[in-house]
């Protein structure tokens, strides 16, 4: 009995020293041992091989074709006016008052059917589909038995992900979060000084780096010279709560959010001690002026860290950027746009909050292959003379969409939960009326 206990202790000690030595220390210095890079390369090769086997197994189409963008139908590009003109064709217009024609209804009919077959909005709230299989069968609908080899590799993959990687990652994540709480509390005890700020930065960076290792995240930062500076506001597209870890790996930001209870609340309090973040009570959030004032005060103080805001307000599936809420763009100061694009090959980072809660989402993240993403820092933008907040928000949104290769949509992310507002429903009718009645 005692021998078993000794062996267990030894193993645990070994485990921890491996973790500390190979992962934590490099993380603190910001260095990397290159293990993750090799892992990713091996992964890519394996996935390509698996895909080719599946193609061959299918037997009808041998070459690796990539899927067209989720298109079922080829939509006409004309505006309502053009199309109705075409519809009427060369028919004489015999109607006295108003140019109404019986056949116009067929235009709306067709548009309606097109929407039923495919609409560009709702499929942004579900995960992106991949052209090739990445050996993850989460909710399995399409898996067919192809060959013994692929199944074996898949089985191996499951074992590796759940038995080797997941425990490692969970350990790291807990260490990261624990260290964040403890470290920031300790730093918070110091008096205000430059050293305190520097130390607080170090602690934050280390913890976020450990967390990133805990997700096997490989992040490539582009255009680091445009990194957000103090006294600015950083805006980014939102895909999941992991975005914060991704961005905070490379710089320190002041977070904005609601005060939570429980573990989150404890962390928020300790983070607040070491450097000024902005946490709002639930009641304060309703008062838009108060919110704006607090943000403005923070931005005006040039010694404070840049604020991190996600103007979409909700998680989108990383194929498009939806409407930016104008509140953040009314504050003033420099806006530093950042585009984040995840590579869906290795793991789907999108948090479908209707489907999964936070814990199951994190577990899914930790049992994916890896999180690979690109972060582009865009040059700062400011509101121009005479430009209103909405136009400015759209300008920033286009820049982010363009850089990240995402589709720029003007639909509101809030549609995930609510129905279309009445005002929008009337829009088509208004257009048609103005054509007929003038």
């Amino acid at each position: 009995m005692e021998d078993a206990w000794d062996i267990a202790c030894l193993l645990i000690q070994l485990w921890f020293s491996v973790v500390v030595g190979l992962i934590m220390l490099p993380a603190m210095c910001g260095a990397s041992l290159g293990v993750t890079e090799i892992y990713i390369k091996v992964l890519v090769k394996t996935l390509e091989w698996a895909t080719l086997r599946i193609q061959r197994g299918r037997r009808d189409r041998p070459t690796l074709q990539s899927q067209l963008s989720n298109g079922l139908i080829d939509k006409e590009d004309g505006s309502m006016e053009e199309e109705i003109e075409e519809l009427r064709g060369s028919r004489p217009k015999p109607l006295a008052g108003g140019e109404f024609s019986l056949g116009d209804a067929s235009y709306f009919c067709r548009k309606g059917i097109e929407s039923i077959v495919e609409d560009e909005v709702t499929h942004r709230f579900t995960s992106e589909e991949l052209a090739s299989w990445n050996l993850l069968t989460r909710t399995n609908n399409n898996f067919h038995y192809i060959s013994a080899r692929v199944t074996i590799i898949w089985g191996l993959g499951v074992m590796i992900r759940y038995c080797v990687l997941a425990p490692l990652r969970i350990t790291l994540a807990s260490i990261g979060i624990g260290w964040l709480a403890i470290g920031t509390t300790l730093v918070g005890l110091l008096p205000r000084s430059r050293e305190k700020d520097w130390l607080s930065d170090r602690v934050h960076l280390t913890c976020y780096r450990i967390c990133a290792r805990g997700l096997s995240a490989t992040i490539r930062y582009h255009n680091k010279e445009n990194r957000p500076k103090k006294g600015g506001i950083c805006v980014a597209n939102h895909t999941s709560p992991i975005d914060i870890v991704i961005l905070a790996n490379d710089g320190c930001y002041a977070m904005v959010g609601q005060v939570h209870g429980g573990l989150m609340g404890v962390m928020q309090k300790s983070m607040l001690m070491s450097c000024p973040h902005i946490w709002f009570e639930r009641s304060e959030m309703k008062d838009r002026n108060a919110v704006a004032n607090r943000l403005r005060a923070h931005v005006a103080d040039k010694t404070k860290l840049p604020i991190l805001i996600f103007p979409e307000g909700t998680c989108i599936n990383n194929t498009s950027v939806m409407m930016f809420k104008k509140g953040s763009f009314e504050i003033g100061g420099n806006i530093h746009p950042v585009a984040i694009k995840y590579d869906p090959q290795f793991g789907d980072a999108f948090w479908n909050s209707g489907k999964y809660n936070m814990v199951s989402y994190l577990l899914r993240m930790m049992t994916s292959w890896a999180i690979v993403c690109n972060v582009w820092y865009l040059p700062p933008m400011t509101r121009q003379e005479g430009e209103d907040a909405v136009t400015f928000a759209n300008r920033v949104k286009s820049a982010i969409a363009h850089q990240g290769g995402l589709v720029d949509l003007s639909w509101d992310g809030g549609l995930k939960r609510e129905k279309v507002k009445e005002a929008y429903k009337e829009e088509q009718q208004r257009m048609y009326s103005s054509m007929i009645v003038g």
Partner: protein
Amino acid sequence: MGAAQSGPTEHEFQDIADRTGFSLEQIRNLNKRFKWLNNHQETLRREDFEKVLNLSRNPIRAQIIQAFFDKRNFGMNEVGLVEEIGFEEFLTVMSYFKPSNKKLTEDETEALRTKKLRFLFNMHDTDNDGTITLEEYRDLVEKLLSTCETLEQDTAKDIADAAMLEVARTTVVHMEPHEVYEGVTFEQFQQILKGLELETKMNVRFLQVNTTTMHCGK
């Protein structure tokens, strides 16, 4: 892995393909869409169409949705409405908007036009008495025009009335003074819309999606 599939199988897809003229690939895609709309149930109901956000902007959404549940459109010479439809009926209604991909003879083109015209007619003729009465016509015009204040209350009514009068003038060759105009019959409907190239305009161009995709459904 290999979960028991409810709903049509590949074999049935082939049957449906032969009947409606869609390709196998298109049917598979539409089946996925059908399942998404009705949350993987067996049948589709009216409420399921509310998931399509773009449709809520369409002025005649109610009529379009109604068309899916209208037995007249199922090609079996029945009348009445149903509460829920299966995948086959869904496809049958969709096939009204399918362009033909082969060269058609004069007769075939005419038949296609008539089919599409019938669909449109059924959509207008809500009580299925064989004519589009003034009420039904007015109803449609009101739906298409905006209800906001820039439009007078009676404008919609006036437009509808004027249009009906015009229809009566052009189609009914000979009307006795005491005759009351009943409404637009299908033949008159066909005549009015003679110049309309429905067979090309009332089409949804389904792409021939040529892929070897393995969807990782997550």
